[in-house]
């Protein structure tokens, strides 16, 4: 067609640019993409490779078998050691102790489960701290109040 030279030039320029874009894009797709679905297959395995922070009661029992035995016989048998004491990895690294386990003696820790709430099921042992300790109105709850009486906390 006459007088269309500029159109052809523009079209060719466009095709070259677009082809370049498509080519560059093709090489930017990560290699494991599409392996298992429309995502980077490596991502799935990166999740798998992360190390757990929590151990289990059995892991604690490996060293603390006396406490473990005591606990297994009592009402707190179902409660994981780590619920009150923090994660295994905050205490053990490479099978060796590197820091002390956290021991929280505050009444607030016990209150997480045992403070009376309307929404708690009936069968759950729950108390109102002020009532239970026979405190005067406005009197503060002593920090380690629970352990004063319930000193064998692993087997209460």
């Amino acid at each position: 067609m006459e007088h269309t030279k500029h159109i052809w030039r523009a079209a060719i320029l466009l095709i070259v640019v677009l082809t370049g874009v498509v080519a560059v894009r093709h090489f930017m797709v990560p290699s494991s993409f599409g392996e298992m679905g429309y995502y980077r297959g490596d991502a799935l395995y990166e999740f798998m490779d992360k190390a757990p922070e929590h151990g289990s009661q059995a892991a604690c029992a490996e060293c603390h078998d006396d406490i473990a035995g005591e606990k297994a016989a009592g009402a707190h048998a179902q409660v994981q050691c780590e619920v009150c004491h923090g994660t295994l990895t905050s205490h053990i690294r490479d099978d060796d102790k590197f820091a002390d386990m956290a021991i929280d003696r505050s009444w607030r820790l016990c209150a997480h489960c045992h403070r009376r709430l309307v929404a708690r099921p009936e069968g759950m042992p729950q108390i109102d701290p002020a009532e239970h300790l026979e405190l005067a109105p406005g009197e503060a709850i002593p920090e380690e109040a629970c352990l004063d009486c319930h000193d064998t906390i692993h087997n209460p």
Partner: protein
Amino acid sequence: MSKQKPDAGMKRRDFLKTATQGAAGMALVMIWGDLSLVSASTVTVATSGREGYAYDPTKHRFIYLIDVAKCIGCGSCVRACERENQVPRHFFRTWIERYQISRTGRTWIDSPDGARNGFEPTVLGADITKAFFVPKLCNHCTNTPCVQLCPVGASFISPDGVVLVDEKRCIGCSYCVQACPYGSRFIHPDTHTASKCTLCYHRVTKGLDTACVQNCPTEARKLGDVKVLGDEVAEIIATKEVHVLKPELHTEPNCYYSGLSREVR
């Protein structure tokens, strides 16, 4: 104005024609190859896991069961999740909601800091006749809107039914956060990528329970696997009355509840 010799013009034109056709051909091949990748979209295509890994994701399918009647709202699960997954403060991969309902149907709902430190008693000035705790987490839906809406393939469903986010691919657009009807997602303040419950994928693929399931003192939370014969949770879901959150949205959650009252949001 054109000063080009006819011969040179013809040769140049022929060359350009051929080059253009060649380039177009190459482009088409590349586009075709990539479009077949695109058709994978939300449907997983994997039929087996990777070589050299003991765990094969295609041989498992996780489900989760929460027994509302057993939850005491202690928050151990929230704290355990925070420690296991380094969850940032004031953002939640799991949380507990407390419902207190009066005789007339007036409802008070609260979740103080996600119930990270449990709950405190409240004085509501009404006769509370019904009250319970509802733990919540990502429902790992089968028909999930969050994966559908992710523009870059960063949010995905694993072959074993876990909805995950590829932190290296996520551009932080927050579309998935908008899409989740359950409020399970957030943008991590440090990585600036979408973040949420991963069903402790790093634990469940090693045969362990999730941190929340393991640390629940009353067994209110349970993890199951429908591809394991005789799985306790699969049995309950198949035989007993269970509910899911917002069933009308047809997201097909894999997190089931027993004892879910109508007031639960």
